[in-house]
């Protein structure tokens, strides 16, 4: 984002709204640090930041590559052309009862780098994606981050994006439940090498008797899920929970 220096009155009302701390007032005018700015759009939304002169405007070329990925990943009001879903990943559990993306016997993993508060770089993403690719993870095709890879088998990100920063983005993939322990041990090891944080999700289907098959594995690993979760109630149609044998 940029600030129209003619319009800005230097009041500084915008400063605390920026999650990247990219706005400062210099010589009685607000300025945006272009390297720090994640293009989330907060300051640009006049119904969010009460800028008295509506001085913020979009930088020319903001939707063009490579900087455009800051805008797309950081601003949830944008919609990805592949998934047709706003945001940073797939609909994961939210439509899983009809997509059958993760069926019984399978797990879904999401590693959301940069969340909460810290933001992230594509360099950190590649540390994580290469480590996961090395254990045979197949990245989710409908996830926008996967589309930035030049080698999905090795988890390599296109170099042209390497200097870009985002509020967050999500590494997503599915796997057989038998691989859960290996995947989580790899994720825990990757955590030591990053310059940011990540929030970790584990998705699975309920068994017919209402139990969750991942809980014993988590207990063995000493990983306790938090007490609040997201539950798909299975009210969508057409309903899907079993993977057909030809898809297995």
């Amino acid at each position, binding site marked *: 984002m940029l600030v129209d220096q003619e319009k800005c009155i230097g009041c500084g009302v915008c400063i605390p709204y920026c999650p990247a701390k990219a706005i400062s007032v210099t010589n009685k005018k607000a300025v945006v640090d272009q390297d720090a700015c994640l293009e989330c759009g907060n300051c640009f939304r006049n119904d969010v930041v009460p800028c008295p002169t509506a001085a913020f405007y979009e930088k020319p070329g903001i939707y063009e590559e490579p900087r455009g990925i800051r805008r797309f990943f950081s601003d949830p009001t944008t919609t990805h052309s592949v998934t*047709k879903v706003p945001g940073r*990943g797939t609909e994961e559990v939210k439509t899983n009862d009809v997509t059958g993306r993760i069926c019984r016997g399978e797990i879904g993993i999401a590693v959301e780098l940069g969340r909460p508060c810290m933001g992230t770089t594509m360099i950190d993403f590649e540390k994580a994606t290469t480590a996961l690719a090395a254990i045979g993870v197949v990245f989710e095709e409908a996830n926008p981050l996967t589309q930035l890879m030049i080698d999905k088998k090795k988890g390599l990100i296109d170099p042209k994006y390497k200097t870009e920063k985002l509020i967050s983005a999500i590494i997503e993939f599915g796997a057989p439940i038998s691989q859960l322990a290996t995947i989580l041990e790899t994720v825990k090891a990757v955590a030591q090498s990053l310059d940011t944080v990540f929030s970790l999700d584990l998705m699975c289907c309920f068994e017919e008797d209402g139990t969750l098959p991942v809980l014993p594995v988590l207990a063995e690993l000493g*990983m306790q899920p938090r007490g*609040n979760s997201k*539950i798909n109630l299975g009210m969508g149609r*057409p309903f899907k929970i079993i993977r057909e044998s030809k898809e297995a």
Partner: protein
Amino acid sequence: MTHTLHRRGSEESLKNDYVLLVTAASGINHVDSREKLLKVLEVVWEVGPANVGSQHLGTILQGYSLEEIKAALNEVPRVRCCFSSKEKMQEIIRRLKELDLGMSVTVEGPTEDIITFSEELGIKPHSINLSLDIWGKKEELPSEEILEFVTMCGHGLISQYLVKKLIEDVKKGRKTPEQAAVQIGIPCVCGIYNPDRATELLRKYAPNS
């Protein structure tokens, strides 16, 4: 994805914090689903949400009306809102079950409570997304008190600096907890930020306000 997961706080603070997500699946059942989601919004409004919004427009906290939010539903529509009691959440699920719209319904909240009230309504949940916490350079995160507010917007649009400023404003009597709770939530464009919970948190962290 996942933006409604990972809300942080004590069991006590989270026990009356529920998010409802009703979603059409792109390419599967989104065609002609807009009318169904409009019906969902009407039912949500009758039960009384703490917040409701549209990712393409904004939320009631920003001053948008239900009619404006309904008009903003697009070709792959989704309803995003939150409630401040288990009873309201259970009531909305009861009504959605009766309507039988065939849209995916997902609830974020205390796991055991969601499972229990689903059983009471004769609903067998399909799948779950569990939060396995935060990993990495956690030492650089703000305090848990700040995280309780910012994680109510999973897209990271609520700045920790705004939360810190408004907690100070409440402590110094410049804002009431209710005013500050709304102002903190305005950057969250989806409608999943819970201003009732935020008000309670502000009363806790600025007890003499």
